[in-house]
């Protein structure tokens, strides 16, 4: 799939962007399955959210689990560390595509899924096994969290 995108779009940055968009579209549908199958309720806070993504979400969809680490002091940013990523099995990046974020689709999925439950986040890869790092690390940053979309609370 990624190869096809490279062939179609030719530019590595475009491919990264497209992967993210595809992930986003997967995420907005995936979230319902996650909620239905995992029987989870509302998360208490963003820490809880991150834990659930790492422990339940990754387990369910990738059959691996991630570690949550490197929280910033306000609890709005964290890293998900993937030690074992089945998407990268049997994949090697050629030299000339070193800018390619092969698993960028994951970022999109997380962003899309969380947006559907009113949590806006930005998500990006900071470390990638394919680019020579020892682990894959996703940086997750909470942008805003609305408790309700509808009805809009006008008093707060």
């Amino acid at each position: 799939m990624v190869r096809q995108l490279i062939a179609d779009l030719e530019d590595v940055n475009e491919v990264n962007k497209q992967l993210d968009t595809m992930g986003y579209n997967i995420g907005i549908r995936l979230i319902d399955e996650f909620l239905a199958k995992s029987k989870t309720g509302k998360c208490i806070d963003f820490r809880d959210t991150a834990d659930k993504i790492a422990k339940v979400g990754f387990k369910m969809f990738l059959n691996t689990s991630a570690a949550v680490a490197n929280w910033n002091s306000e609890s709005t940013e964290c890293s998900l560390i993937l030690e074992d990523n089945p998407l990268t099995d049997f994949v090697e990046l050629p030299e000339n595509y070193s800018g390619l974020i092969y698993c960028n689709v994951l970022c999109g999925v997380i962003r899309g899924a969380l947006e559907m439950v009113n949590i806006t986040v930005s998500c990006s890869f900071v470390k990638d096994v394919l680019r020579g790092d020892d682990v894959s690390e996703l940086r997750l940053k909470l942008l805003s969290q609305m408790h309700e979309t509808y009805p809009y609370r006008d008093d707060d």
Partner: protein
Amino acid sequence: MPAIYALYVINKSGGLIYNKEFVVMASNNLNDTLRLASIWHSLHAIAAQLSPAPGCTGIELLQADTFDLHCFQTLTGTKMLMVVEPNTPDVDILLKDTIYDLYCDFVLKNPFYEVEMPIRCELFDLNLFQTINNVHRRWGLIH
């Protein structure tokens, strides 16, 4: 005698995206159904705000003389309504577990389905009927 009369799905903006009746119901045209769906959506939202109980998420059950209406709202804002015979047991579980699972598997995973749009998925219909039939069989309504 417990029985399931109908299933409705309302999207997060209050539009009816699925309706299916499992028994012959009083003549109810589509326009009326659509209107009722959006009225329910608004009532649900108003109820959540008016409720004295903290953390209320809206109406879950409406009991009338001739039917019970169960409403299950997913965390993403989609509502699933089920109209059943009064005092039918375990409808909330059926909605939450079985119907929601079917919705994920056969609606959301259908690549031709666009989110928030009316549901026209053959497999969803098929599996829904099977599920409802199984439930009815369990209750001894059909053999």
